[in-house]
């Protein structure tokens, strides 16, 4: 079959510009992986794509995600480094191999190309280190025009850079003890969400919390036990109803956590934060023979695009409510807009 001749370089360059913007805007590693798969599907015309992680230091190799006919697919199969992949990594250049589909996941096979083929792209990051592999499935007839291949190479380089960026960003923004986002990230993301308000309807809410009597707790049980409480409460903040309630959980200070809610209506958030408070109250914290009870107080603040508040003023609203909740007896949440006790 002859090579395609209808490739329009102008349109491809505009599309490349657009794809670049979509990729570089993403900071969440999981969302980025999805965006990478979508982008590579757009530019490669392959309907079966797999993405593997590779660590040059310990040579670990694993499936990150795969895409088949518009859907993400999963597999329990343990994919291993093969001589073909090692050769591809050594060259740091794309190469064609025979194709095998394992649970609909494209993977290079040994031996000459037979019925189908795959194009393997090593993902090469900083210092020319290989950090992953993209495998694109094709029929035997597939041929690339030179322009088309060069644009795909640009896309793959961009994907590698973005993957590396989000990994470094995560390392720099995740608190080592609690796995919550750091205070620095909280400031950045809250400002970003405040800026986003002008492009969307609804409210932006965040909850500032503080563990009740935490100093006394540390004095009684020691700092190691205090760390256990911080970790377990952080885990609740991260995982409780994770699939239902989108939140950005951060460690604001020592025992102060902040949860940003970028998308949900306020009524749902009020319900959720009260449930979270009750769940914490009932949670049996580990580390002692007798299970420990820990509570927190919270202040909730919200703004719409009509509110003319800066970052500091917005944080102060939640902080003021937290202070009032503490004053009123702790283990409760105050909402700025109502000042009512949500216990």
């Amino acid at each position: 079959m002859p090579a395609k001749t209808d490739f329009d370089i102008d349109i491809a360059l505009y599309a490349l510009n657009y794809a670049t913007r979509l990729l570089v805007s993403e900071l969440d590693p999981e969302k980025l992986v999805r965006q990478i798969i979508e982008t590579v599907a757009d530019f490669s015309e392959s309907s079966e794509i797999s993405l593997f992680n590779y660590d040059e230091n310990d040579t670990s190799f694993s499936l990150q995600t795969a895409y088949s006919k518009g859907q993400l697919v999963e597999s329990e199969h343990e994919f291993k480094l093969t001589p073909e992949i090692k050769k591809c990594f050594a060259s740091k250049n794309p190469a064609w191999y025979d194709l095998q589909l394992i649970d609909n996941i494209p993977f290079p096979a040994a031996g000459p190309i037979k019925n189908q083929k795959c194009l393997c792209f090593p993902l090469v990051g900083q210092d020319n280190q290989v950090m992953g592999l993209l495998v694109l499935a094709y029929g035997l007839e597939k041929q690339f025009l030179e322009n088309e291949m060069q644009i795909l190479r640009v896309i793959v380089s961009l994907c590698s850079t973005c993957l590396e960026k989000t990994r470094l960003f995560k390392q720099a923004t995740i608190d080592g003890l609690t796995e919550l986002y750091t205070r620095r990230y909280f400031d950045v993301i809250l400002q970003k969400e405040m800026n986003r308000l002008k492009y969307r309807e609804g409210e932006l809410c965040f909850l500032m919390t503080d563990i009740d009597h935490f100093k006394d707790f540390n004095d009684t049980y020691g700092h190691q036990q205090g760390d256990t409480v911080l970790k377990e409460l952080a885990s609740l903040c991260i995982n409780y109803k994770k699939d239902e309630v989108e939140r950005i959980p951060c460690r604001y200070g020592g025992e102060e956590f902040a949860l940003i809610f970028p998308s949900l209506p306020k009524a749902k958030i009020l319900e959720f934060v009260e449930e979270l408070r009750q769940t914490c109250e009932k949670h049996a914290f580990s580390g002692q023979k007798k299970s420990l009870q820990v509570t927190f107080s919270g202040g909730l603040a919200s703004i719409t695009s009509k509110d003319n508040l800066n970052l500091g003023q917005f944080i102060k609203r939640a902080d003021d409510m937290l202070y009032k909740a503490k004053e009123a007896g702790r283990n409760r949440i105050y909402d700025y807009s109502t000042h009512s006790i949500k216990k």
Partner: protein
Amino acid sequence: MEISTKKLNDIDVVHISGRLDAYTSEEAEKTINALLDKGTTKLLVDFAKVDYISSSGLRIMLASLKRLNRIKGSIKLANLKPALKEVFEISGFNQLFNFYENEEDAVKSFGTDSTV
């Protein structure tokens, strides 16, 4: 992804809903190309129910724009969600396409401006 078309006087209106990505854009391309093949010169694409447009989806709009420019026709995009509109604008596509807040404004604009 779902796609439907309707005729408003001499304007062909295309409604798309869902995700316009590599897998679904083929159907959108076929529908729009069929309208262009029939000789439409006024195309309005309503994105009110579109959550995501990949670069494949964008290519369809660009290819339609090119075809219409050759015959002095025009394409208007309506109801782009704010986040999508933002990416379009940052990528400079507001220089290529005219965006409208709603279908009605886009329809009216054909009366005064027949080219993009």
